[in-house]
């Protein structure tokens, strides 16, 4: 089998390519070294953000008590909050007034409810007489 002069063996560039690939590599290095200050500053900020992300991700052993305390505080707040808010969940004042008015307007019916036992007794008497 014949091999072309430039065909790289096993994924390696051929020796004849070494000169221009070395030059290309050198130029790429130079371009990377010549980045302007604004770009370098942005890269620095990106790196700091990544480091901060790695810090929070790790949650090392010494941070667990603090995390536990924070979680406990949150759980406590969730449990206590509904109880503290409970009075607010009673019937709204408008509804109370409306209900009272309805009762006051039905005085006759209230008297009927109060004498219900008497009417029941009267009914049994009439049945016995009848």
């Amino acid at each position, binding site marked *: 089998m014949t091999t072309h002069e430039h065909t790289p063996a096993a994924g390696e560039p051929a020796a004849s390519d070494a000169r*221009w690939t070395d030059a*290309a590599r050198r130029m790429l290095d130079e371009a990377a070294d010549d980045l302007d200050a604004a770009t370098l500053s942005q890269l620095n900020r990106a790196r700091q953000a990544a480091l901060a*992300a790695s810090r929070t991700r790790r949650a090392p052993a*010494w941070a667990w008590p603090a995390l536990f305390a924070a979680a406990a*505080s949150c759980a406590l707040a969730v449990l206590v909050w509904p109880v503290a808010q409970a009075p607010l969940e009673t019937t709204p004042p408008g509804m109370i007034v409306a209900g009272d008015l309805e009762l006051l307007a039905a005085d006759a019916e209230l008297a009927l409810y109060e004498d219900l036992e008497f009417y029941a007794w009267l009914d049994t008497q009439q049945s016995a007489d009848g």
Partner: protein
Amino acid sequence: MPLATAVWNVSDRMPSAPPQAVASERALDRFLRGIERRALRIAELSTRHREDALELVQDAMLAFARSYADKPEDEWTPLFHRVLDSRILDFHRRSTVRRRWRVWFGRSGDEGEEDPLEQVADPHDPGPMLRMADGQTRAALDAALRALPLRQRQTFLLRLWEGLDVAQTAAAMGCSEGSVKTHLSRALAALRPRLEDLR
């Protein structure tokens, strides 16, 4: 002890992180500092815009720090490039979709966008000699690299600039080692006539 006091006392102790955590953060800082400029250039050759490239590198750094910082350090370079490469691929997919929509809606690239034809290699390109004579060697190299298909360019940069071996490049690009060899062979064949006078 009140809960708030307990929390305060714990947080007081936080800055005294174990030496191991400090050392690993320093190692991560050193690694990112060492790779960030080349990563930016690799992204920039694909996106053609510095701002887009910066965004991709920032995303890659964040994702790498969150997901792979606890891996052994000798695996960091291919892993970082795996993250960056996937972001570059996503960027290209999104760009392709955007271009397609622009074509469907009959919009041309006259709103500050680049002409898609500029992304096609010019067969009558005068070659590097002329442009090198004008002192534009680096621009000639950039143009030659940008004219390569994405996977060939990535292979060339990872293998010959970043110095990853075939297996590491395959891992970084999410393809087989055979594909890496094929991509590199084609990249070299495409670049050779344009760059072989480079010194």
